């Protein structure tokens, strides 16, 4: 077997041991039942927290099953270089996977995926923030995935939504990320990592759909579909994702209210 070698260091590259494991040929028998016993439309338990990163203007933490994502908003900061002045604020988003976040070995091309996720998040967050209110400013958002068990992109967007809401930066609305896995006729909401990566169904549609949604304004801020689908099917899936997003919204609001109460108490103590 060719193990390949790292050109830069001229040292034979290591290989994750998982490669040599014998895998069942038909993964999970086209998932008759979901491994964690959920119904197809059932979400995993989720936790939303805010104010975890003390140095940031606002931060959010999302746990979705065992997927864990932290987002922190820095800014708005003044842009010092004259070349970069613009009438709208510049929003930059950097997404990173921690090396221990993904199952299996260290991934070689993870940085490409990180870049793709970063630009998707950036384009999904730009419609949310009132960029015109902050001329000559830059807003930086750092997102870190601590554990990947499916739906990282959706969890990251929700975490960014909480972080923005708590940062005091003016936004148009909250933003919520939701995702699903299509597999033939079945639609699995909030899939785990194994479900997301499962082999395609023999026929019909398959693939992952991630949606960014502003619930009050009813606007789609981000969409990413992969696999094989059809417009009519995708439209149906999007409307069910929107329903899920409306269901998640109260939880997010609760998290924000909790933070507000805490801050109120703190200011009372200080008085």
């Amino acid at each position, binding site marked *: 077997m060719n193990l390949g070698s790292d050109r830069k260091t001229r040292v034979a590259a290591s290989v994750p041991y998982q490669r040599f494991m014998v895998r069942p040929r038909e993964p999970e028998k086209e998932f008759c039942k979901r491994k964690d016993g959920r119904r197809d439309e059932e979400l995993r338990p989720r936790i939303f927290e805010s104010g975890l990163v003390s140095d940031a203007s606002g931060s959010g933490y999302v746990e979705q099953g065992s997927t864990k994502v932290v987002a922190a908003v820095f800014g708005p900061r003044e842009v010092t270089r004259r070349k970069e002045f613009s009438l709208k604020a510049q929003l930059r988003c950097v997404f990173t996977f921690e090396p221990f976040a993904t199952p299996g070995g260290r991934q070689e091309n993870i940085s490409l995926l990180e*870049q793709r996720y970063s630009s998707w998040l950036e384009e999904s967050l730009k419609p949310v923030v009132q960029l015109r209110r902050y001329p000559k400013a830059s807003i930086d958002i750092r997102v870190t995935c601590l554990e990947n068990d499916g739906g990282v992109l959706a969890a990251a967007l929700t975490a960014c939504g909480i972080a923005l809401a708590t940062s005091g930066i003016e936004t148009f609305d909250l933003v919520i990320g939701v995702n699903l896995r299509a597999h033939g006729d079945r639609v699995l909401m909030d899939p785990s990592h194994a479900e997301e990566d499962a082999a395609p169904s023999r026929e019909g549609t398959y693939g992952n759909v991630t949606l960014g949604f502003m619930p009050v304004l009813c606007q789609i801020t981000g969409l990413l579909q992969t696999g094989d689908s*059809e417009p009519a099917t*995708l439209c149906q899936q999007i409307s069910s994702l929107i329903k899920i997003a409306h269901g998640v919204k109260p939880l997010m609001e609760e998290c924000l209210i909790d933070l507000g109460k805490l801050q109120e108490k703190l200011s009372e103590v200080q008085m």
Partner: protein
Amino acid sequence: MANLAVSDSEKTFIIHGVEDNLRCDGRGCLDYRHIELELGAAPNCSGSSHVRIANTDVLVGIKAEIAAPDHAAPDRGRIEFFVDLTANADPEFEGTGGDELGQQIAGALAEAYVSKRFLDLSSLCIVKNQQVWVLFVDILILELGGSLYDAVSIAVKAALYDLRIPKLTVSIGEDGKPEIEVSDDPHTQEPLAIANVPCFVTLSKIGSQFVVDVSQEEAECSTVNMCCAIAPNGRMATTMKTGVGSLHPDSLIEALQLAQEIGVALHKALHKQFVKAQELSGRTNGFLL
């Protein structure tokens, strides 16, 4: 992407025109500009193409090499995309300036080609678990004139149509290991099955209308694009929202259906042109002429 200075009054003019289904160059909202297509533009490649849509100029060369397969797919060939935005297209792309956009395009293409339903790479397998063909697709963007994803995906499909890989014979050598022999007769070359390869159809929202194949001036007037990879049979390999705006679910539904119709028609027209271009292949003087 490179920014063009368009004044507010110019924008209003373009938006009002689009509302009346008449664009600056006389097109309707759902019309493409003329697509110039040339195959075999780079003779040193296994397959190449040159596509020009008005000012958008894309050159694609595919080089086939033999390498070890991916562990996850030991019986399939590989396809890898590299996008190079030249500083000719925009001075901003000088040095590493074009890398971010280039990687975005390469990532989107890889996503569209990943499923074997759209491009079956199993015919590129030479010896399972050991040797497969790897297609290195190098995309060079010479000029920007809007609608970059569409132009790039058309050029890549054309280059795949033009692709000819020499036939190999595998025999078991004396030591029991497989030996590869390359045929020197070019007539044994096999084309790749590209009947299901998708192309990107980008719909940009200008005012309340969706517009296909936007020029750079028009791109400045739109805030949100739906970028869909549509296969000839109307199925979607990948869909993404690009741009800084947001969309109502109803207009998203409208966009997806439009993209499907346009995509199917585009593929029909392209296949006809591929056959014609194949006859003319290699007879032109230079790709910049």
